[in-house]
């Protein structure tokens, strides 16, 4: 027993020291601290970057914009590059947590990132000073062709009682309220409390028909035909279609959310030069195509389609939609603390309703 305990202790200490060694990091090394969504980059691209530039990438990952924010806002770690979504970029700008980019150091971003995406990004980054788009997509309805007989072209179908218990909705205030707002013909950045209350009432009315409010598990459920239809992001739709051939994806005619995740550099970045090099590297078409293949999320990089070898991806109207699908669509804006709170409370009232 004693021997065993001693061994255990020695083992602990050895592991502990090893852990400290690997966690400490060498300061003299050329580094860049990247904080991005989990699994949002092909790990191979990082190896190429390190080889070409000699800059060591320290990658940290988060699971939601919201769990990223406190760590950046409080300066827990001095990250250099982050990859938040649209409204979160605006929140970071308005709270003075990110710095303007030096576009002279980003030649590939200027060359390869589509004009229309910079234009769309103006809704959260008015002068395109702070961010370079990395991924984008829309939100639509994915449905089982064997179960859904009505045409799917409107958000209305989510209120159709025929599909009671067969509907999956997104579990987040903005994504849930966006749908009734669009149905009413309002903006998804609506701030008029009357309309928001109406939107909430519609969601309460819909609740008995909903099988579950889901986040990431929506993919697994739809691949297994757990539900007849669900509200999903286009990147998720691509994965589901690949695994379950009974499914089809549609973007409702009332309009939808056009989301963009972009690279930004934090205010207190310690390696600003390296950060620019990293962002520019991510905009190179040969790298962007690797990331696209890894992720399956649409890319704003205009160089990718020519390099893409996978024919199903290349011809997929979901991965590379025609411009009319997304032109005129809205992007989430940061509506300020007060309005965020209002949305959140409405959503919780929907969820607590019996």
């Amino acid at each position, binding site marked *: 027993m004693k021997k065993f305990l001693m061994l255990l202790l020695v083992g602990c200490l050895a592991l502990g020291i090893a852990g400290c060694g690997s966690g400490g990091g060498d300061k003299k090394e050329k580094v860049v601290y990247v904080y991005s969504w989990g699994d949002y980059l092909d790990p191979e691209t990082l190896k190429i970057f390190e080889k070409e530039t000699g800059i060591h990438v320290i990658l940290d990952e988060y699971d939601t914009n919201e769990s990223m924010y406190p760590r950046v806002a409080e300066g827990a770690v001095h990250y250099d590059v982050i990859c938040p979504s649209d409204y979160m970029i605006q929140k970071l700008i308005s709270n003075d947590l990110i710095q303007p980019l030096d576009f002279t150091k980003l030649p590939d971003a200027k060359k390869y990132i589509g004009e229309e995406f910079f234009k769309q990004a103006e809704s959260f980054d008015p002068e395109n000073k702070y961010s370079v788009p990395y991924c984008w997509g829309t939100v639509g309805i994915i449905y089982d062709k064997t179960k859904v007989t009505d045409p799917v072209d409107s958000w209305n179908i989510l209120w159709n009682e025929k599909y009671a218990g067969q509907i999956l909705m997104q579990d987040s205030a903005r994504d849930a309220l966006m749908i009734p707002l669009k149905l009413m013909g309002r903006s998804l950045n609506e701030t008029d409390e009357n309309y928001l209350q109406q939107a909430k009432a519609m969601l309460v009315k819909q609740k008995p028909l909903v*099988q*579950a409010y889901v986040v990431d598990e929506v993919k697994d459920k739809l691949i297994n035909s757990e539900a007849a239809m669900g509200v999903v992001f286009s990147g998720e739709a691509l994965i589901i279609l690949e695994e379950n051939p009974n499914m089809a994806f549609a973007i409702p005619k009332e309009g939808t959310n056009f989301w963009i995740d972009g690279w930004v550099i934090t205010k207190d970045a310690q390696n600003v030069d390296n950060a620019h090099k990293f962002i520019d590297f991510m905009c190179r078409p040969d790298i962007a195509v690797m990331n696209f293949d890894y992720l399956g999320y649409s890319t704003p990089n205009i160089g990718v389609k020519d390099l893409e070898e996978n024919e199903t991806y290349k011809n997929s109207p979901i991965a590379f939609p025609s411009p009319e699908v997304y032109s005129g669509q809205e992007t989430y804006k940061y509506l300020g603390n007060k309005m965020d709170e209002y949305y959140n409370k409405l959503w919780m009232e929907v969820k607590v*309703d019996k």
Partner: protein
Amino acid sequence: MFSRGIRNILLTPFLIWAGLFIFIPLIFIVWYGVTDYDGSFSLKHMGLIFEHGFWDAFELSISLAIISTLICLLMAYPLCLILTERQRDNTTIISLLFILPLWMNSLLSTMAWQTILEGNGIINQLMRLLGMPALQMINTPGAIVLGMVYNYLPYMVLPLYIALTKIDRRILEAARDLGANYWQTFTKIILPLSIPGAISGITMVFIPALTTFVISALLGGGKLLLIGNIIEQEFTFQYDWHVGCALSVILMIFIVLNMLLTTYFEKSHEEEDFK
């Protein structure tokens, strides 16, 4: 056991520790809980518990936590009794086998329960094979309770098992020699001696069951909101420390009251022993 001096020396590390890592964070939380955004004293965030249906969520959380704690206790007690009664040599390995599931990541095993309970899940596929109608199991309060029991049962088993193994066999034999039947030995000796272990177990099951939000999201389909979900939403989506902390303080007060009640119960019980 020791002199006062040694006792105080032994207490110092914990006091320093508690000061740094228990009290400072606690002060943070209470301070945020009772102040408004401008830093002035205000109980309005605490009052939020009565709005937006939060109270319903609170009640639901408490009832689900009580139900799962009771089920854990009812499941674990006979289990531990059986394990302690059997041949001692084998019990170590068997009892370790009942702890082993703890070592699987709880998120992964909760997701595995989804696979088992879903409409097209393993149980329903078996039912279909047997020609029986499918059951609606996932996205119900029952599924949440099941998830809680699964995740927290080992926390009940461990302290109970230890309390029961530590009961001196000779006392039980003596009781039997004096003519006590099984039921009498159980109620007069085993049950009272196992109460401290049971209370530890209840604490370790009830508290996490009350504050969980992952289980309700994955197995309850997000349609049932628990107090843990609300606090989590306030902190993450809202980054609103004042409301989040205020609700946490209410939850803490509730748990502390409960613990005081149980220690009171334990105390009166101990005194009974001495009579």
